[in-house]
């Protein structure tokens, strides 16, 4: 892998940075607890927040690479055009899900604005904001993938 190639995948690069970040914080906690015998109170909150952000940035990359886990039984059984139509129908349903998440996310962000985590006081809405934000990116990618699939089937 060329390291330079990573910069062409910013979603995954950010996800990797979060992964590295929470590994460093977890290591710090282990060292501080076992060497200095003083447990840190804030690490669990920060690490849990980083995992949520890592996951949803990573999911954008998963969708971009079309590598969501799915049963591929019909891919071997159906001809390309009916398969493309079936998958387009699936994409429409996925778009409906993503729009629902974006609308729900808008409400969640305003509803949870006053809630904060106990140790660090991180606003809860900043933890969950990545869910609707990632959904906006996913929406664009699902549309692009659907368009490409239809073009390939009829090429």
């Amino acid at each position, binding site marked *: *892998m060329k*390291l330079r190639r*990573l910069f062409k995948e910013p979603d*995954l690069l950010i*996800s*990797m940075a*979060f*992964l*590295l970040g*929470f*590994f460093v914080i*977890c*290591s710090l*906690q*282990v060292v501080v*607890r*076992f060497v200095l015998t003083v447990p840190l109170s804030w690490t*669990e909150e920060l*690490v*849990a927040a980083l*995992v*949520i952000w*890592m*996951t*949803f*940035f*990573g*999911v954008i*990359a*998963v969708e971009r690479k079309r*590598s*969501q*886990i*799915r*049963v*591929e*039984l*019909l*891919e071997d059984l159906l001809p390309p055009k009916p398969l493309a139509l*079936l*998958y387009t129908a*699936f994409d429409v*349903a*996925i778009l*409906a*899900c993503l729009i*629902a*998440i974006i*609308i*729900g*996310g808008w*409400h*969640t962000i305003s*509803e949870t604005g006053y809630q904060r985590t106990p140790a660090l006081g991180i606003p*809860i809405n900043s*933890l*969950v904001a*990545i*869910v*609707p934000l990632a959904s906006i990116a996913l929406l664009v990618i699902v549309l692009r993938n659907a368009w490409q699939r239809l073009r390939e089937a009829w090429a």
Partner: protein
Amino acid sequence: MSADPFTVTLIFASIIVIIMGFPIAYAMILCSMIYIVFNDLPLSLLVHELGLSLNSFTMIAIPLFMFAGKLMTASGISDRIFDFTGNLVGRVPGGLGHVNVTSSLVFAGMSGSTLADVAGLGEIEYKAMTRKGYDPDFTIGVTLSSAAIGPILPPSLPMVLYGVAAGTSISGLFLGGILPGLLIAFSLMVYVFFVGLARGYRVDVWAGWRALWISFLRAAPPLFTPFIIVGGMAMGWFSPTEAATVAVLWALFISAIVYRTLTTTAFAEVLYDVALSSSRLLFIVATAFLFGWVSTFGEVPQMLAAAIEGNITSPVVFLLVCIVVNLILGAVLENAIPLLILAPMLAPIAEATYGLDPIHFGVVMVFNIMIGQFTPPIGLSLFVMRDITGFSLGRVFMAVLPFLGPLIISLLIMAFVPSIVTAIPRAAGF
């Protein structure tokens, strides 16, 4: 008690669309979204469940165990392990078949999943065995089936998932998986022994104690990994997440300092793979929690409990029914779904109604569902092996089919002889 028929219909509909090829994570979101809209509930529930279900410190163990496993694989330990186990058991009738099983046993102590075992060792094992004249189908069967030890011997990603979902002690589950892991290896080796004798497979020449000792020293650092993880958790020193962190630190130490095989590029590749695969898995986990919430709101667990308690009085029959249902679900669904949705529904019934030990039930459930990795249509391990060998999926499945016998026998033994699972956790005070 009867569940909301609308919820039950939605759940069955989502299983059908999953089989038709709808991405699994989105199928669970779609089912939940329809339920929320039709019951006039706020859409913000979707975001709450998706985002905050991952807000758990224990969940962090999942990407970290993946990280440790990938680092170990990247450091080139597969060859060292194969070399060591070759010197250890290569002269037993069945030869490299036993080497294959024991390599998986050793690798399982670092990887935590079937897929990691197949991806990390599969190619080396397949090439080594077929080059020495072993039948390719037999080789595929032994390679895939021995990878079933991965999710049973600690550290185990499916056990972390099960522990989080069912509220069972993860340390207890890890300890409970030790003897069953050895049992699976033993049952496979018995099968390999008889096939080896029947087909007259060539065995390796005994290379002597010195060669065994040297190969052991070459493979020794990674061999300590399971002892560090299990020992630390059994002694109460580490939580599962801390054990996973220590496993990554240990893997970094081995690959960067002891073996000096970890380059910057290799490290970036590992991070890349782990970020991608753990995001994919954790997204399914989040959607499964959302789906589980819908099931609970629709009173599906209560319906399931009432149906089971009304028809089954014996714990033996209950376990048998669970095993059959999980074998079917493990075959048609991604393993995380039955682990995260069905397990939390069944675990309280198993304990409260049938008096089953939660660790015993958990280990049996995990292995039971993991056998689905070897059956179409969604046995991911079959796809990895197909890519390694270039054979059709059907041929790979037919190759592993005879090996399901020893695996299912091991499952039945651990289900009906609970002490095989509970002996070590009891001794450690769980």
